[in-house]
């Protein structure tokens, strides 16, 4: 029996290749995403363990609004320099060194633009050469305008010792410094993780990075011999009290890499999301392939039955086949996926200028790949095998044709699954706290599976309708009939296409609705002609310098200039964004605000205003009080004095400018809304403001129209990225179409022979197969468009209350493009099966049994 199984497996090479390919493709995506995230994760770990490998214990001030583990370091609290001496007296301490090292030193390159680094733009104090840091050229900084830069920055921006460099520091406007030295880290590393670093003299660093004198932000402590890091930490903690954060080097590297890993987790979700989609598509593909293969073998299996094989032997033989194909397919899929993951990781690390940790073999990836590959294949095979074993031997030998089974069961099942999916989706979208993401994701998944199960029923009218387009020619008619011949097979093949298209369409619908909503609301709510702001590239927001704002306000072309700043605070114990305006009446004018309750025309210290929607959500009324702890540490009780209407531009809590100046990490304006005087052309006003900002490369001026365009453009870019990834999943489903058609062509060999014998030309044969392919692809696409648009519209409608846009804009352009794409893809997918059909030897085909 085993021998017979193996022989039949090897005898049909094409069948073997196609079914293995199905498994390879599905497993590939899953293992690829797991390997990628594993490699990146270890890369980040390495970076941080390197950075802190020479640190015994580090001391910093404890911040109320942000902790290091959450990755939010926007609030930097200074430690007085006198603490260094205090710490040195603590038992077990050999040496304490205070230093400044914070993000926010933006270096202006030779092209006049800020040197971009995804890993951070750090500025700090030069503490001399040590185990970690070495000068490779030049000398240490000694004058206030002298700096040392890391070799990574020197290479990236082509700076050499002696060059003048402009820097916007965290607490200082643009100023020119002079490079006197270039440094490297231990192990000849130009940077730790692709960041840029500028090191000033201690006094300059304190002033330009922290904005104060005689302060540090971290104190590195070295222990005496024989004192463990943990002991040292506990000693210092006990001596300094609760206002300080004391961490060992190990803790720090763990916390830092955990912060990055937190970000990586979303990355992981993203790829695993695609992995899941690919897997779903892959399951369709494997299931379909096996059900066709086994039904084609019904006769062969019946012969074995007639010769005395038991049902169990038949099922076992199919299962062994599936096990072999599943194992081989998973192995190849895993290897290819590993290659793809490694390629992705090396692309990422070289882009981010990091040293890759090298390719690893994550156990999770191995287990998942093989479990999924083998299990799915065997489950896919066992259902048709049971079906085949049930057929009476003689019946199967006499007539291999699979009879049309009623679709009642599958339709009811599909209906139930769809209903559960839609239910879960609506529950999730209505808001279910922590379970929301799970419910939404599960709902989308179940809806897709449910619709796929309903697809055989839908396929009859829909395929007939789509196919009628092609019915003007005989091959067209034949192709259409062929595609509705086996509704289950057509539906499951189209189902794989549907999944990809549905998800793309859903995301496009959400994005295009969002994009339209933004355009409309900006149009409606914003009275400003110009918006001055910068694209944030690090945790430090681009700032409009106070004197620049003063100059803008003095411009004769302008009528109103309102500046906005914001920061993260702890509001009633929770992290939240709060806004502050320097000129409340000006903001009221440009944002078209009006009072809903109380007064809004001025906000004094200890007061706040809020918009209507936020007030409703949080049940604030005029007179309500909130506890706000600002980034710089002070806690204040604020009283609500007025409620404004809600707009698209800046909802939430607005505190007084006085409180913002005292408490915000960056009290300087981050955004300015400008209204030109009547009669002044917008472009003239823009040119005037640009003139003021010519020395601030981070901040730019946009007209209202440009703002709408650039915010919509962001969605377009995001959409393109999502689409590229999903098209890969779609590619797998196209292979499913090829697979199905190839197997159909083989199955219908005799029929094709007859058609050729009675005069069907090669070209006509070609178009017959192609049209079948196009009809199946189109069916899947149309189904996907409807389901995707439905899911997208549901999401948009449900998010109405959360985000504040509710009008559904269907991405017609994309949708039409998908349909045209489907026709092309269908024709391409039909290519190989069509060639096979055309090359058929008429005589053999007629004699084919």
């Amino acid at each position, binding site marked *: 029996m085993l021998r017979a199984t193996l022989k039949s497996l090897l005898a049909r090479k094409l069948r073997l290749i196609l079914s293995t390919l199905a498994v390879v493709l599905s497993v590939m995506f899953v293992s690829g995403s797991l390997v990628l995230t594993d490699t990146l994760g270890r890369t980040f770990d390495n970076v941080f363990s390197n950075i802190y490998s020479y640190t015994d214990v580090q001391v910093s001030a404890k911040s109320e609004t942000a902790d290091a583990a959450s990755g939010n370091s926007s609030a930097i609290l200074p430690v007085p320099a006198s603490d260094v001496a205090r710490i040195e007296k603590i038992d077990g301490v050999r040496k304490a060194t205070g230093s400044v090292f914070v993000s926010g030193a933006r270096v202006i390159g030779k092209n006049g633009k800020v040197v971009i680094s995804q890993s951070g733009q750090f500025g700090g104090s030069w503490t001399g050469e040590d185990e970690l840091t070495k000068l490779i050229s030049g000398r240490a900084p000694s004058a206030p305008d002298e700096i040392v830069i890391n070799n990574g920055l020197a290479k990236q921006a082509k700076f050499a010792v002696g060059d003048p460099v402009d820097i916007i520091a965290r607490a200082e406007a643009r100023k020119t410094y002079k490079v006197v030295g270039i440094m490297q880290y231990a192990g000849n590393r130009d940077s730790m993780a692709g960041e840029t670093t500028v090191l000033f003299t201690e006094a300059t660093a304190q002033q330009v990075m922290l904005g104060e004198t005689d302060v540090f932000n971290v104190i590195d402590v070295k222990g005496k011999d024989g004192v463990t890091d943990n002991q040292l930490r506990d000693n210092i903690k006990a001596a300094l009290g609760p206002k300080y954060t004391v961490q060992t080097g190990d803790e720090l590297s763990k916390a830092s890499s955990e912060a990055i890993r937190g970000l990586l987790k979303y990355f992981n979700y993203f790829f695993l999301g695609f992995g899941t989609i690919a897997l779903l598509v892959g399951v369709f593909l494997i299931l379909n392939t096996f059900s066709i293969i086994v039904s084609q073998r019904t006769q062969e299996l019946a012969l074995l039955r007639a010769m005395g094989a038991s049902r169990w032997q038949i099922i076992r033989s199919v299962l062994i086949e599936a096990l072999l194909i599943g194992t081989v397919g998973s192995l190849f899929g895993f290897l290819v996926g590993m290659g793809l993951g490694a390629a992705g990781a090396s692309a990422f690390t070289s882009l981010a200028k990091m040293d890759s940790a090298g390719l690893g073999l994550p156990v999770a990836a191995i287990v998942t790949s093989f479990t999924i590959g083998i299990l799915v294949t065997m489950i896919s095979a066992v259902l048709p095998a049971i079906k085949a074993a049930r057929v009476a031997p003689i019946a199967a030998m006499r007539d291999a*044709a699979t009879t049309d089974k009623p679709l009642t069961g599958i339709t009811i099942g599909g209906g139930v699954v769809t209903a559960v999916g839609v239910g879960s989706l609506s529950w999730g979208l209505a808001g279910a706290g922590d379970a929301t993401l799970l419910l939404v994701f599960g709902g989308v998944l179940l809806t897709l599976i449910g619709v796929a199960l309903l697809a055989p029923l839908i396929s009859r009218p829909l395929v007939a309708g789509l196919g009628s387009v092609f019915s003007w020619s*005989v091959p067209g008619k*034949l192709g259409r*009939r*062929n595609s*509705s*011949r086996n509704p289950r097979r057509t539906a499951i093949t189209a189902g794989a296409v549907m999944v990809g298209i549905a998800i793309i369409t859903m995301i496009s619908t959400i994005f295009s609705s969002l994009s339209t909503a933004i355009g409309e609301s900006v149009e409606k709510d914003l009275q400003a002609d110009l918006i001055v702001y910068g694209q944030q590239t690090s945790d430090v927001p681009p700032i409009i310098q106070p004197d620049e704002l003063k100059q803008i306000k003095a411009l004769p072309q302008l009528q109103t200039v309102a500046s906005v700043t914001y920061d993260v605070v702890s509001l009633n114990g929770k992290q939240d964004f709060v806004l502050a305006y320097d000129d409340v009446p000006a903001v009221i004018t440009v944002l078209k605000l009006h009072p809903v309750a109380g007064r809004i025309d001025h906000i004094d210290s200890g007061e706040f205003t809020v918009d209507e929607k936020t007030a409703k959500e949080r049940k604030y009324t005029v007179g309500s009080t909130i506890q706000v702890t600002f980034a710089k540490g002070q806690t204040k009780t604020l009283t609500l004095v007025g409620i404004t209407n809600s707009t698209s531009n800046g909802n939430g809590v607005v505190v007084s400018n006085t409180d913002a100046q005292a408490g915000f990490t960056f009290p300087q304006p981050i955004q300015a809304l400008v209204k030109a005087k009547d009669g002044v052309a917008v472009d003239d006003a823009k040119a005037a403001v640009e003139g003021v900002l010519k020395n601030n490369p981070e901040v730019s001026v946009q007209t209202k129209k440009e703002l709408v365009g650039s915010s919509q453009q962001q969605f377009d870019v995001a959409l393109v990225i999502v689409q590229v990834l999903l098209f890969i999943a779609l590619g797998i489903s196209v292979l499913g179409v090829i697979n199905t058609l190839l197997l159909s062509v083989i199955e219908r060999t*005799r*029929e094709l*022979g*007859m*058609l*050729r*014998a*009675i*005069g*069907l*030309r*090669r070209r*006509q044969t070609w178009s017959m197969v192609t049209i079948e392919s196009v009809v199946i692809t189109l069916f899947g696409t149309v189904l996907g468009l409807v389901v995707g648009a439905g899911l997208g519209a549901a999401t948009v409608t449900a998010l109405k209350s959360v985000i504040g846009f509710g009008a559904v804009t269907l991405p017609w352009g994309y949708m039409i493009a998908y349909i045209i794409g489907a026709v092309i893809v269908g024709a391409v997918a039909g290519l190989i099966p069509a060639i096979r059909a055309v090359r058929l030897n*008429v*005589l053999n085909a*007629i004699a084919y049994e």
Partner: protein
Amino acid sequence: MTTTVTTGQAVAARAVDVWKVYGSGEAQVIALHGVSVELERGQFTAIMGPSGSGKSTLMHTLAGLDSVTRGEIFIGDTRLTGMSDGDLTNLRRTKVGFIFQQFNLLPTLTAEENILLPLSIAGRKADPKWYETVIDTVGLRDRLKHRPSQLSGGQQQRVACARALVSRPEVIFADEPTGNLDSRSGAEVLSFLRNSVREYGQTIVMVTHDPNAASYADRVIFLADGQVVDELLAPSADAVLDKLKGLDAKVESAADASQAG
């Protein structure tokens, strides 16, 4: 009924010294051994012979489905040998009809659509009068909207016959048309084929190994070892059976002789 004169005009299909060789060297099989036959227009010819005698190969080469190694094939005045696939397809569209043992109907089409399939493939319209005649002759009027799976074997084969007839081809080639039918349905199909020859002057060439089926033909050609060995006009089933027995004996003794030698 037309005459049996073998003038060039009256020949529907013709094989001239046709050789068909499969394989080479040790594995070489000579399927046709210099066969020359003329199939007269308006005649019902049966080709008979034991298994491996080359009867199917002869029919396939005559129908332009298979190439010949040497010799020439004509349908009417058209020389098939050396034609391109496109020309052969054209020829099959206009001059040749097929009836297969396995019926070979398209399961997705109705009986009527199956019958009209060769015409619609060629983009031609059926002659309505002729179409009606064919439908009535095969007796399928009330079954036209049925799918093949809803028809019995005999009915399916009658659909296949109607499909071959409706385009009025020069020759219809029937490959064991009753091989998959019970004797009653087989007899129906055969008498229907004979009628279309007698009444409408259709030329039919049938390969069969059933003497009873051959007795419906006007002429029986016997093949053995790839050669035409005998021929019988207006045969009866018994006469055919006798001839076959003689042939089998000849073949057997030849085989014995070659083994002994």
